[in-house]
């Protein structure tokens, strides 16, 4: 026990004595780990926010089904759905995309009475008259929009809109590039009169699954025949699963990119951890000559690496926190949130979970161990006289 304590204390002493080498190694590790921790935190933050959105949303989403994809649904279905047992509320929605100058914006058309009460405005008021819209803070900031400003959009340039207000900057990331307007204005803009992109159904607790099955089987439809095209019914569980899959995919893409960077970092760290290796090699030769065994040398070096990792990983997590708080996750958030550029115009959501922090520590350990244990072992197993040369 005393022997291992001696090695631990000597390792700490070695790190403090080799200040430059230790500092360079810690900085390199932080540079490798901090983007990883930041990215995973953003991914978790977005995932969490999206799941909250889904949770607060409708219980069932109904669209038409064209070759397995969502397609516009006729408003004729509304009445049939409203009459179904267990349904508390039904309303149509139009969700589409267009370019606001060069920025991809999401257009949501909704009846004013169906606007969720949780929506907060930073400035101006809710749309009341035809052509009035609420604009996301991201778009407003980028294009210097003010309440009362008029604009048109690329698909239907003849239709004029007027900014009536902005969403709160702290609202969910989905609202940053959003243009919220009345259902009629959206239907006119996309030239889809009498249709919605989806119908949202709210149900009493415990009814959703059964109702979704019934709608899929054709209940609630007013026509005598089977609806043509068939309906595509998605309940909350399914929507959650889609979100989850989407984020896992994005996190997967980032992880793949990170793995490449990680692979490149290993040789870089090999060089860094080999910084002062000639002196180290001689030291190992000397201590072997004085009676140390290879495993004892390895233990001391492994402890040094462990201490360096234990220092680097929390610093990387801390830097990630600072980066997210003060720099809003710049450069990294764009991997997860489409169309935001280097600096997101809204607060990037993040969530620090224990697993990414632990992974950061684990990566630090792997990197430092790979960087130095092999060279140490190689030096310690040759005759000491060769190591001392």
């Amino acid at each position, binding site marked *: 026990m*005393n022997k291992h304590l001696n090695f631990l204390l000597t390792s700490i002493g070695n790190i403090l004595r080799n200040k430059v080498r230790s500092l360079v190694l810690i900085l390199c590790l932080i540079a490798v780990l901090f983007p990883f921790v930041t990215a995973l935190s953003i991914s978790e933050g977005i995932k969490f926010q999206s799941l909250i959105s889904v949770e607060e949303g409708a219980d069932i989403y109904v669209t038409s089904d064209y070759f397995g994809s969502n397609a516009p649904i006729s408003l004729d279905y509304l009445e049939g759905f409203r009459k179904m047992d267990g349904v508390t509320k039904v309303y149509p929605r139009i969700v589409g995309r267009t370019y606001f100058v060069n920025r991809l914006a999401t257009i949501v058309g909704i009846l004013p009475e169906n606007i969720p009460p949780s929506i907060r405005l930073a400035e101006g008021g809710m749309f009341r008259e035809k052509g009035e819209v609420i604009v996301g803070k991201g778009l407003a900031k980028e294009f210097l929009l003010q309440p009362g400003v008029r604009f048109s959009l690329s698909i239907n340039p003849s239709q004029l809109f007027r900014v009536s207000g902005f969403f709160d900057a702290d609202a969910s990331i989905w609202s940053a590039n959003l243009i919220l307007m009345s259902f009629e204005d959206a239907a006119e803009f996309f030239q889809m009169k009498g249709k919605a992109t989806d119908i949202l159904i709210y149900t009493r607790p415990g009814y959703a699954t059964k109702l979704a099955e019934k709608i899929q089987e054709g209940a609630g439809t007013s026509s005598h025949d089977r609806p043509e095209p068939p309906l595509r019914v998605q309940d909350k569980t399914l929507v959650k699963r889609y979100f989850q899959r989407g984020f896992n995919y994005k996190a997967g893409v980032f992880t793949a990119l990170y793995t490449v960077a990680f692979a490149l970092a290993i040789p870089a760290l090999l060089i860094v951890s080999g910084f002062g290796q000639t002196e180290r090699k001689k030291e190992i030769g000397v201590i072997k000559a004085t009676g140390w065994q290879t495993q004892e040398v390895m233990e001391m070096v492994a402890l040094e690496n462990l201490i360096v990792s234990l220092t680097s990983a929390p610093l990387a997590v801390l830097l990630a926190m600072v980066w997210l708080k003060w720099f809003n996750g710049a450069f990294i958030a764009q991997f997860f949130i489409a169309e935001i550029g280097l600096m997101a115009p809204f607060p990037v959501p993040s969530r620090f979970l224990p697993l990414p922090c632990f992974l950061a520590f684990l990566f630090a350990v792997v990197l430092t161990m790979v960087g130095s244990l092999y060279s140490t072992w190689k030096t310690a197993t040759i005759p000491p*006289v060769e190591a001392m040369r």
Partner: protein
Amino acid sequence: METIIRTEKVDKIYYQGRPEEVRALNQIELEISKNRFVLIRGPSGSGKTTLLNVISTIDRPTNGRIFLYGEDISKYSDVQLSRIRQKTIGLIFQNFNLLPRLPAWENVAFPLLPLGIMERERRKRSAEMLIQLKLEKRLDHAPEQMSGGEQQRVAIARALINDPELVIADEPTSNIDAESIKTLLDILTNLKNKGKTIIVSSHDPVFLDYSETIFLLKDGNLIDTKIIPPTPL
């Protein structure tokens, strides 16, 4: 008299099988008795250091066998050789090989770390050793803050900290001044008197008067052995 070291047809060949092959030791056969002052002499490049390295187990012979207390150690594992160096052999290198960032006492105490001896005791033991070698004012000095002679005494203290049977010194007078040479001879003589076996490799004639066994090397061959009856030192 008990034999502590015996070599049997020891070869050391560098770059074996290549055009630049060097035969540093050739069929060396020698025997060293316990508690003798042994000098290995020879001109530069004769193989003195190589022979010391092989005897002290910090290098392996290409061929031949080395016996320590009658035990063939030439095929010993890395772990076994480390144990021998820890318990039986104290090494003093020509260029001292002190760890540059450690103060004198820590350099001396470094071999005690794997033995589980805690810092207070390590410091006590190394201080005692350094005081014996008249370095009481240099305990906390880094090697670069000391003279060559002082550094050598730190290296001697490190070699002796585990109380080895065999003290091996490679060219110990080559990096120190005349006064330090005198101190060194006193130290080695004292060690010899305490029952240690001293093996020194040097071409410095200063050791001739102190040595009881002299091996003369030339071009890697042992060309002469002189066994001198012990004289009062």
